[in-house]
């Protein structure tokens, strides 16, 4: 990926050389797998544990390099380094779990402690390995911020295939994982081995993290798992929707990021991939139809107008623009107009009968009442 004199079109259509093409395809596979695993970790509120795992891989990488050197093997072989990374990555996850379970510390403190301390141990080991007679540890540092250029085509292909295998395992276990995310007790009652499923999900998280190390770097690899899932959450309220959108966002973002770093000189692959995923995330945050900033601003900005329109419809009068938004046609309220009036009447009843149940932070008379308020009113509403 030297980026010398290749146009964007050549890169995007896989005509920029064999190596670049394989790295891009590998990145897309990795992004898809990370998007899928990340969606489940996110729904289980475990996404940031991947950050602890990512940082905890550094001591393993350095130790694997040193051990291989002492045994006389080629220390920089990728599988050896990644095996070490996976070992200490799991150790880091176990340490964070143990801190949370056995002390009063909150999970987020345990994660912050694990990630900073294990990274620091890695840095210390790195400064020790530099002094070893086997000499140059050059290349180990590329794991910190990632360096896809250091990947050979066969290594990139191997990583991509492993990522697809992880995605296949994820799909095979889709139903139990979905149950785990939404109703752990129900899953246990149905006889699923919840503890083992949890371990399998975290194991897949470690696997994807390790596969992404060389491409994205251990500081930023957590972004592969978090960004697609959080972006997908803005578009869908359903598990399948979130999952498949997350897979698509991950694959697309990683592909475009890898392509961008092949086109622009001095664009680091890892940062480019994260920025591409970040662009998807930012677009979702702004433009998602229900939860996005634009939709929210529009809803708030027009709440007063819609309230007056609903009041006018309730009194059998028209209101400027009510026909435009489909609330009134031919002098009569449409189905949507009638629904708006019904919502308004529920708010009125709630105010009259149980004002304590009135929710805060919603547009008065416009937003649907939350279920708790409806329950207070003693009837199931729409």
């Amino acid at each position, binding site marked *: 990926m030297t980026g010398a004199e290749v146009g964007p079109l050549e890169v995007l259509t896989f005509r920029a050389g064999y190596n670049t093409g394989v790295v891009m395809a590998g990145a897309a596979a990795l992004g898809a797998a990370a998007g899928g695993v990340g969606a489940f970790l*996110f729904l289980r*509120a475990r*996404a*940031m544990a991947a*950050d602890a795992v990512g940082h905890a891989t550094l001591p393993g990488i350095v130790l694997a390099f040193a051990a291989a050197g002492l045994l006389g093997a080629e220390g920089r072989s990728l599988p050896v380094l990644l095996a070490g990374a996976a070992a200490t990555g799991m150790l880091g996850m176990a340490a964070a779990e143990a*801190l949370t379970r*056995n*002390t*009063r*510390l*909150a999970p*987020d*403190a345990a*994660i*912050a*402690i694990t*990630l*900073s*301390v*294990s*990274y*620091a*141990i*890695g*840095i*210390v080991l*790195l*400064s020790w390995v*530099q*002094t070893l007679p086997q000499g140059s540890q050059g290349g180990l540092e590329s794991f910190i*911020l990632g360096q896809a250029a250091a990947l050979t085509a066969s290594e990139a292909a191997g990583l991509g295939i492993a990522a697809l295998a992880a995605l296949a395992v994820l799909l095979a276990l889709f139903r139990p994982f979905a149950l785990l995310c939404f109703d752990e007790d129900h899953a246990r009652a149905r006889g699923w081995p919840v503890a083992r499923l949890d371990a399998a999900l975290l194991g897949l998280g470690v696997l994807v993290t390790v596969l992404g190390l060389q491409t994205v770097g251990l*500081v*930023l690899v*957590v*972004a592969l798992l*978090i*960004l697609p*899932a*959080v*972006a997908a*959450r*803005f578009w869908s309220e359903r598990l399948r929707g979130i999952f498949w959108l997350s897979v698509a966002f991950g694959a697309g973002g990683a592909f475009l990021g890898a392509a961008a770093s092949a086109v622009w*000189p*001095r*664009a*680091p692959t*890892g*940062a*480019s991939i*994260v*920025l591409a*995923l*970040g662009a998807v*995330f*930012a677009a979702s*945050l702004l433009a998602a139809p229900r*939860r*996005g*900033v634009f939709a*929210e601003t529009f809803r708030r900005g027009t709440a007063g107008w819609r309230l007056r329109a609903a009041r006018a419809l309730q009194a059998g009068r028209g209101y400027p623009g009510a026909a435009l938004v489909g609330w009134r046609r031919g002098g009569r309220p449409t189905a949507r107009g009638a629904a708006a009036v019904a919502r308004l009447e529920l708010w009125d009843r709630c105010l009259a009968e149980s004002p304590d149940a009135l929710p805060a932070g919603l547009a008065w008379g416009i937003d649907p009442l939350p279920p708790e308020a409806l329950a207070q009113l003693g009837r199931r509403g729409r």
Partner: protein
Amino acid sequence: MSLFWQVDFPALLAAGLASGLCALLGNFLVLRRESLLGDAIAHAVLPGIVGGFLLAGALASPAMLAGALAAALVAAGAIQLVRRLGRIEPGAAMGAVFTVMFAAGVFMLEQAAGRNLHIDADCVLYGQLEDILWLDAPDIRALPREVWTLAGVFAVAAAAVFLLAKEIRLAVFDPAFAAALGFRPGLVHLGVVLFVAAASIASFEAVGSILVIAMLICPPAAARLMTDDYRTQILLSMALGTGSAFAGYGLAGFAPALFGASWSLNAAGCIAAVSGAVVAAAALFGPRRHSAAAGAATLGRT
């Protein structure tokens, strides 16, 4: 002057100040259950630091500090927005925001390196404590710039915590009551964010961002496992932080010499590792390591 005053003393001073400062601020992150906010801010200031450097063209300019504070505010605002609109749990919201901002910083660093500007990722990632020198040793005005910056931020933060002790404690333990009294707990949150950002920029050249994160969380977490008292916790965490700094620095320089080697280990890394060992010890033996419920009941008492 001896080598100690020229090499070890300024490094110890910088490490001690940075650790004490971070430990002081970290108490409010740990008590408010926002530990990952330290992680997020320490990463998210990078584009501000690099942007300030590119604009001003010099290290340690006011532009870098302004850039870091602006980046921290952007990060805190974006995290709030993502949490509220997406109804997304705080950890994931922080992870989404800070990784993108850190990636933007790395991208800018890489572009700057292409133009042969003197700023690189190494000092952010590892810390270069060993490069802090006091060559004209007895001359107090010749103390390294990093030490003065750290001392300044430390003084302001300590004064703020001392003067606003009551308000901060109320905002940390009972935000609703604080708001009812008219104290604006949101302002305390904003102040913590800004001070963590200032601590990150003051420390980043000397000790690297990773030591900032370790020192923000490890000493306060260890102190949390040892005491239920608010004031004791703050003082204890600062003592543990500074102690880890001295012990870690000593370990880095002298432990290899015990084995007859002439090289030394990365000092910032050793300091963070020692603070991790302190947490491990506190988790195994700390008198208040369990008792979450009992602790919550008594922690507000002086």
